[in-house]
């Protein structure tokens, strides 16, 4: 039997990055906020102190901090002609679980998108003509501009204390920063991290080729920092156990190290952990959310009524909950109709490995966001005309650790086992290095999410089905970008390099990133977007959907700076517009 709880002003589904930001902003505005989180409470001293945080087997190989697929997973297929099968163990991406969400075990690479990324369709069509885009590509503008969300990027970076060097301050180019970035209103809160050997060599090589290398913007802090909420972070110690791990030093920006200590003191905030929201409830009209239903660990069902529902469950679960709750029209690719599940996108990474004779990189001295990068080949920073593809990415020397189970790089041709393998691992561990391209993934008509017809979760609900493959445009892009990266790496003087461009078909068995995007995208046209420019549901105006769910396509950068800037932008709209006059913020 479902037990009904007293109503609250706001219910937040998921207490990760966006949930924490919204909870802090809305409790600050005087609202009563209840956050419901599927996983456990987690904190530095109790869950990943430096006495055992650096455990590659437990955290990286056995996924201790992540969601258990037994609790929730998806099915996957490359195309509509295949039968989707369940992802039984995570490999391709790693959904977070528990307070902090992905923000707990991310790398903290904190990138802004380019101004043109937000008006992608308009920009590319103007520059190259509409015929230049592949026929099935469904990229679109965001309905919000870089200039509009710049203050909110700034707000998130100052929350985190991000370490970096501006390349563009109010339109003035700055030496040592990224010359291609959009204008920043002020410098990064803290200076860049110091760089290990390989990154410095890469930057020298890039300069010799006429590029403008700069330090990767990092949420692994270069020095102690106290944020506007009064929460203090320490300096990163380059422990090399960063992404997939919690930070034992309070030096990686996360909800735990930037918001929660302040949020929890708000008397109008309450979190319920190990409680999974199973659906968003609607009234009879179907146009108003009445709250959520969730289950606790003893499978007791609870109803939490609320005036405002904020879906902050991470891209995948946001889309899944919309589909399961029957909110918005599900996307149908053959009819090209509907919006929920439409424009799913991802990321296209690739690598160049290099083997040296005379170098010692001490790869274990690293951090999740360390490295030197170039941005010449991102977005539309270069002329795509001659190349026949669109999109791009940043590239650089960004190896984030030397954790030995997974860092046993050997030259091509080495057997996978035996004496030769053992010797090759011993010979190359300190003197080889992996460089990387982090590139865009644009959206297509035949790439989407819907509900699976066969597989169900432990509660009997349909799993979400992902239909995804790379398209020729992305594979061409990956080849071109990997070749450019290889030229820089070659200049570093290696004995041998190995180019590893991304090739198709996409496989759910190889980790690239956890930057799944889209499925309920933002926009100005209801027929091709699920939420308006303030992330408010077109169909249910007292529901806002956060996260990379809103990205109409993914750019050649990591998503979270943009995800969290949009969360602040939406919070601002809720506090300053919606609360005064609850209803649609954009009229259709």
């Amino acid at each position, binding site marked *: 039997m479902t037990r009904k709880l007293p109503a609250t002003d706001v219910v937040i589904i998921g207490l990760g990055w966006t949930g924490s930001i919204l909870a802090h902003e809305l409790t600050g505005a005087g609202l009563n906020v209840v956050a419901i989180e599927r996983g456990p409470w987690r904190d530095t001293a109790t869950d990943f102190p430096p006495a055992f945080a650096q455990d590659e*087997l437990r955290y990286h190989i056995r996924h201790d901090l992540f969601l258990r*697929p037994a609790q929730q997973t998806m099915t996957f297929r490359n195309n509509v002609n295949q039968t989707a099968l369940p*992802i039984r163990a995570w490999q391709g991406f790693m959904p977070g679980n528990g307070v902090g969400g992905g923000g707990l075990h991310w790398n903290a690479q904190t990138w802004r998108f380019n101004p043109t990324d937000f008006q992608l369709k308009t920009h590319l069509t103007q520059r190259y003509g509409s015929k230049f885009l592949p026929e099935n590509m469904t990229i679109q503008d965001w309905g919000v501009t870089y200039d509009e969300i710049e203050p909110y990027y700034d707000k998130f970076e100052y929350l985190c204390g991000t370490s970096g060097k501006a390349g563009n301050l109010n339109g003035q180019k700055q030496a040592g920063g990224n010359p291609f970035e959009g204008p920043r209103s002020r410098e990064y809160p803290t200076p860049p991290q110091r760089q290990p050997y390989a990154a410095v060599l890469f930057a020298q090589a890039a300069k010799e080729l006429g590029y403008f290398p700069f330090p990767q913007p990092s949420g692994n802090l270069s020095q102690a920092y106290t944020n506007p909420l009064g929460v203090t972070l320490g300096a990163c*110690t380059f422990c090399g156990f960063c992404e997939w791990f919690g930070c034992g030093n309070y030096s990686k920006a996360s909800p735990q190290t930037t918001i929660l200590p302040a949020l929890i003191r708000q008397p109008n905030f309450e979190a*319920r952990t190990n*409680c999974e929201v199973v659906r968003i409830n609607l009234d009879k009209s179907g146009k108003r959310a009445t709250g959520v239903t969730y289950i606790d660990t003893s499978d007791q069902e609870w109803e939490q009524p609320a005036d405002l529902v904020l879906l902050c469950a991470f891209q995948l679960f946001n889309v899944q909950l919309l589909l399961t709750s029957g909110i918005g029209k599900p996307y149908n690719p053959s009819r090209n109709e509907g919006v929920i599940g439409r424009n799913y996108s991802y990321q296209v990474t690739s690598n160049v490995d290099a083997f040296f004779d005379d170098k010692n990189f001490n790869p274990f001295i690293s951090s999740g966001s360390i490295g030197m990068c170039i941005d010449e080949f991102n977005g539309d920073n270069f002329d795509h005309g001659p190349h026949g593809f669109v999109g791009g990415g940043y590239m650089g020397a960004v190896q984030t650790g030397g954790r030995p189970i997974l860092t046993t790089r050997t030259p091509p041709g080495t057997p996978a086992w035996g004496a030769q393998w053992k010797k090759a691992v011993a010979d190359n561990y300190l003197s080889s290095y992996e460089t990387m391209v982090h590139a865009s993934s644009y959206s297509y008509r035949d790439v989407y999410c819907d509900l699976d017809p066969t597989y169900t979760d432990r509660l009997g609900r349909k799993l979400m089905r992902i239909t995804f493959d790379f398209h020729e445009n992305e594979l061409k892009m990956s080849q071109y970008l990997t070749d450019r990266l290889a030229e820089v790496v070659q200049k570093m003087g290696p004995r041998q390099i190995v180019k590893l461009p991304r090739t198709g078909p996409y496989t759910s068995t190889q980790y690239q990133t956890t930057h799944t995007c889209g499925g309920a995208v933002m926009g100005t046209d209801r027929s091709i977007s699920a939420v308006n420019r303030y992330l408010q549901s077109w169909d249910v105006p007292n529901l806002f959907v956060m996260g990379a769910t809103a990205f109409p396509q993914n750019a050649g950068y990591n998503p979270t700076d943009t995800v969290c800037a949009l969360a602040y932008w939406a919070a601002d709209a809720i506090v300053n517009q919606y609360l005064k006059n609850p209803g649609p913020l954009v009229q259709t």
Partner: protein
Amino acid sequence: MTLVFSTTSAGALVVKGSLPWTPNAGDPPTAVLPGPWVYFIPEEGAAIEALVDRLIPPDPQTPGGKDAGCAVFIDRQLAGSYGSAEGLYMRGPFANGTPQQGDQSPLTPAVRYRQALAALDKYCRATFAGKSFAQLPDDQKDKVISGLEEGSATLDGADGKMFFAQLLTNTREGFFADPVYGGNRDMVAWKMIGFPGARYDYRDWVDRHNERYPLPPVGFAGRPGWVRQGP
């Protein structure tokens, strides 16, 4: 015996007013103790020791998989949450998919090892005049392993190629994981490659470029020189 799974079993909790601290709430890993097999029967244990010692053979500087403890590591992992596929999605229907769809087997790792080792034993005894894998000379052992790797040695009642891949993965895990899990004994694998282990602070070293880091590795339990000897 869980070995690595921990933090999901807690019950639902309401958090309000202050951070939910409990003294000594940390959840350090449980150390594997030496001693008899926990999951393997003796014949399986002998075969695994022989296998891991060919996958990572001993050399004058560094012990092989067997003396490094890889077989003990695998035994304890199979007896714990890994072996029972705890936390994985194990609902049917089970169907074979494309390689891009990942492992779809209904068998847990513990059962896969049991079936594959029995099948391997049958294969070896039939092919090599009644000898088990562990009784073969090294060059014949290597041929059998290559056969599994390439898929040319067909096992009756098990997928040899899949078993090879899993065994190799688990052997490397045991070799390079913290010694607390039973492999990488005395941090031999870390010494072999120059990895300093469970250290956490390299601020003094990040810009000492192209220099060899001088300190020896440490594990969660410190290192031999730190531990008191005797009662």
